[in-house]
């Protein structure tokens, strides 16, 4: 088991790191096609990364270690999350420490590092982006934690592999109102956390609206490539997490290599479907005003809270 476990962890990280730019490229391509454009192709993010990596590293004068470390922290933290989350297999050498709260904390670490980097540059945009990002993060965090709490009540543990294995054993849980509400709240939180369209527009460079882009405006060359890779991996991991929590079927609970390969293929398919749905939804939606974002996040907070409360009074015998 342990050999396959190590292979599973390595495969998860490799698939997330290698596939995340492809996912972003795929989503851009879907969007382009729906809008009647030809699109740049699915591998364009990788081409961009190659172009950026060949450039010489430049950092603005007066920036300190926060600016230099942020891309590394972002990518490293997300890679650790990719190793921890049971995207493909529940029995891995790290499954004992794959706690959902730890996962949330690691993702928040990346957010905080980027915000600090934005402040470190000392430019108006960096500070503005950092302050907006922190506002959103402060509203998203309670939602994510409550949604996590709701998902972990039926399993009796916040350990992710335990939750996923429990849901595979009791498929009825995924249709319980608590689980559905928690997944809906989690989806809104993921949209806010990855800066997708109702909260932030990933394609904009307009001063008034940008959040994530404003923070990373000063990065260039290989650093920018890392930041881009980090945010793409974040999107891939979070979509993978939602897919794993909402539809855990196919995740390998045993140790056979064939099952692992199947699980990885299913993971790619599930995340691709989610990404397509997200990209298609973005075509029809507009970004909400920044002052309306708290309303949206309050809504998702209430959904998460209802999920927690509901899991107390809406469990007949079926959910147990």
């Amino acid at each position, binding site marked *: 088991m342990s050999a396959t476990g190590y292979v599973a962890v390595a495969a998860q990280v490799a698939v997330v790191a290698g596939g995340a730019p492809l996912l972003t490229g795929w989503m851009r391509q879907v969007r382009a096609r729906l809008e009647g454009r030809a699109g740049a192709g699915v591998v364009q993010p990788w081409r961009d990364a190659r172009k950026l990596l060949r450039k010489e590293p430049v950092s603005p004068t007066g920036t300190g270690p926060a600016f230099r470390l942020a891309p590394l922290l972002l990518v490293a933290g997300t890679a650790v999350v990719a190793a921890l989350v049971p995207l493909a297999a529940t029995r891995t050498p790290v499954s004992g420490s794959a706690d959902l709260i730890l996962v949330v904390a690691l993702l928040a670490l990346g957010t905080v590092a980027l915000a600090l980097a934005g402040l470190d540059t000392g430019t108006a945009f960096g500070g503005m982006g950092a302050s907006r990002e922190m506002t959103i993060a402060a509203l998203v965090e309670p939602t994510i934690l409550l949604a996590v709490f709701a998902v972990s009540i039926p399993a009796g543990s916040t350990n992710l592999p335990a939750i996923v294995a429990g849901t595979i054993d009791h498929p*009825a849980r995924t*249709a*319980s*109102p*608590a689980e*559905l*509400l928690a997944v809906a709240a989690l989806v809104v939180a993921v949209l806010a956390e990855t800066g997708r369209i109702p909260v932030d527009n990933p394609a904009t460079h307009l001063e008034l609206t940008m959040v994530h882009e404003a923070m990373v405006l000063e990065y260039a060359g290989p650093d920018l490539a890392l930041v881009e890779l980090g945010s793409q991996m974040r999107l891939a991991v979070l979509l993978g997490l939602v897919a794993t929590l909402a539809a855990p079927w196919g995740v390998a609970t045993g140790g056979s290599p064939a099952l692992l390969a199947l699980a990885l293929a299913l993971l790619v398919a599930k995340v691709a479907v989610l990404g397509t749905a997200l990209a298609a939804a973005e075509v029809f939606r507009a970004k909400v005003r920044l002052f309306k974002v*708290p*309303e949206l996040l*309050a*809504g998702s*907070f*209430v*959904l998460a*809270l*209802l999920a927690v*409360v*509901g899991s*107390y*009074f*809406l*469990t*007949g*015998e*079926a*959910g147990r």
Partner: protein
Amino acid sequence: MSHGVYAQLLDLACGVFLLCAVVVLWRRELAVVVRVLAVQGAALAAIAAVLGGHERRWGLLVVAAGVGVLRAGVLPYLLRRALDVGAVGGGPYREDVSEGRETRPVVNVAASLVVAALLVLLAYAVARPLVALDPTPATRALPVGLSVVLIGFFALVARRRALAQVVGFLVLDNGITATAFLAASGVPPIVELGVSFDVLLAVLVLYVLTARMRAAFGGTDLDDLRELSDR
């Protein structure tokens, strides 16, 4: 219907029912709110139907059908018409925006969502002794009915537009009916019939009243009606 499937279906219907009450507070567009109200009526009918199917009481199924027709069909249709009357005369491009949206609720949306969350918690706390009497799946879902009653009350006081207040009243009434279904498997059909006609009549009266208000004052912002004025 096996027991597990029954509990699952009942929980699902109750979840949709409660969610609709929260969405009524969440959205500002009255057209969307009316549509959500129709979904809530359908969920209420589903609760009654699931209970009737489980206990094999055909009377309850008939009541469920009646509740569905009234609360998912007739009442939203009336509200929809009252809403459209406000937009008539402006032409397709000059829709009266201020009448179609709850632009300035007394309590802002984010705060009212948090209040809704607190009300749900309160309902859960209050209903615990009741649930402890006989913990069946239906009784356990009792807090759903109570919290929808409370959320309806809140929507009634926190909104300014007459139509939004009517929606709050209907949410409140849906909550009362759901509580009756969940706690006592419904009231006798004749009582249910009386209550339903009462609600229908109330909505018709409010519908006429709203139309008259709009004709007399040009709007249905109830805060403007607080003081007497000679116009």
